[in-house]
């Protein structure tokens, strides 16, 4: 499963969105789909757990969680850095 697909599943489970996640495109804006700041933190925790990563402080901003593809990109970046280290 691609990172984006896994992220999509986690968004469905923890995003507490008022709409069906299936109706949101990978680059669709999660905040306008109803992602609250509380849910975005829960989402972040679930993603850290799933991928066994930690979001660095520099990534803890609105942009990182704006869409499924933005989250997937952040996850891939962190995983690549962890492998390189």
């Amino acid at each position, binding site marked *: 499963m691609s990172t984006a697909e896994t992220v999509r599943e986690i968004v469905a489970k923890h995003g507490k*969105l*008022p*709409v069906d996640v299936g109706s949101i495109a990978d680059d669709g804006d999660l*905040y*306008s*789909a*109803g*992602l*609250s*700041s*509380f849910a975005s*933190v829960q989402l*972040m*925790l679930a993603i*850290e757990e799933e991928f066994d990563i930690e*979001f660095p*402080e*520099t990534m*803890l*901003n*609105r*942009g990182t969680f704006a869409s499924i593809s933005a989250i997937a990109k952040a996850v891939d970046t962190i995983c690549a850095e962890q492998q390189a280290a």
Partner: protein
Amino acid sequence: MNIVTKAVPADLSDRARRAAKVAGEFADAVDREGRFPREGMDALKGERLMSIQVPGELGGEDASMQEIAEVCAILGQACASTAMTYAMHQIQVASIVGYSGDSAWHADFLRRLCDEQVLIASATSEAGIGGNLRNSVCAIEVGGDTVRLEKDATVISYGEMADAILITSRAHKDAPPSDQVSTLFLKGQYTLEHTRDWDTLGMRGTCSDGYIFRGEAPKEQTLPRPFAEIAAESMLAVSHLLWGALWYGIAADAVNRAQSFVRAAARRQPGSTPPGALRLAEASSLLQQVKGNVVAGLRQFEAAKADPDRLSAMSFAVAMNNVKVGTSQTILTIINHCMLINGIIGYKNGTPYSLGRHLRDAHSAQLMISNDRILGNTSTMLLVHKQDTSLIG
């Protein structure tokens, strides 16, 4: 990081002091009668202080947040209701200046703000959601080039005296509660049906009655950027900083009054230290903490302001929340100390040492967006945010 704070130009502080002098003369009457601080606000307009934040090319003065905070602190020492009215107006101006993009309508409005020194009110609070400003129940109706909105606004400070109201709502009728926009309605484009009286312990002159707002305006008056961004990058920080500045002002004036009391006592009995002196020293230390908290927050804001990523970073939100919670709690302790120093003459109204108004006004600070709500938000962020343990940053 070592940012040198630009000193506030003397001219600006002088203008603020002149307006504050007028506001101070009427502070007790405004408080007693729970009426709009007309004289102080007219003086601010007379000094053209309503438009200082507007960019120079539109007729303003490009004032920084630090400069605006200094004006708020000066006003806070004279009349907290005038200071809060001014601060809330500037919070709205910050949203319009920063988030209207290339909207010609908003640029024209800002020019008008400079020419006419108009006053802008805010309506975020709504029946059913309280102070959770990132949620709206009401939705703006978009029909052709027109928008229509009805909102059960529980609190709109100086709503009837304002020339315009910046009001949040859901972006359209099917939008989730957090998908919000902010629309600037001009007087004449809305009606306010009075629903709730503002007969309060303090901040009585803000006249923050509740209304059913009903408005209709051209669509272009909606700010082009989503309210989520405006709130995260500007409104929350600017609110906490400017409120913090004026709350500091309230406490600073209380400490001034306590210091005058102690000095008068010392003069009567040269050679012996008056009993209140020790408590005054304690109050002075606490006041310095409040000042340090606000100033550090302002510096952080100025350093982050050009970068949306830094402004929407969790570390920044945590810091701004801490400014709000910390200052709102500490000013109460300070004013209480001052009350113990001044004794009955401080408890009485109408003396040079009176502190009742200060204490009552200051009590609004922890409720104005409930500290419990803010601590709740911070505690969520602390689940992932890692604190910066460096001293200077």
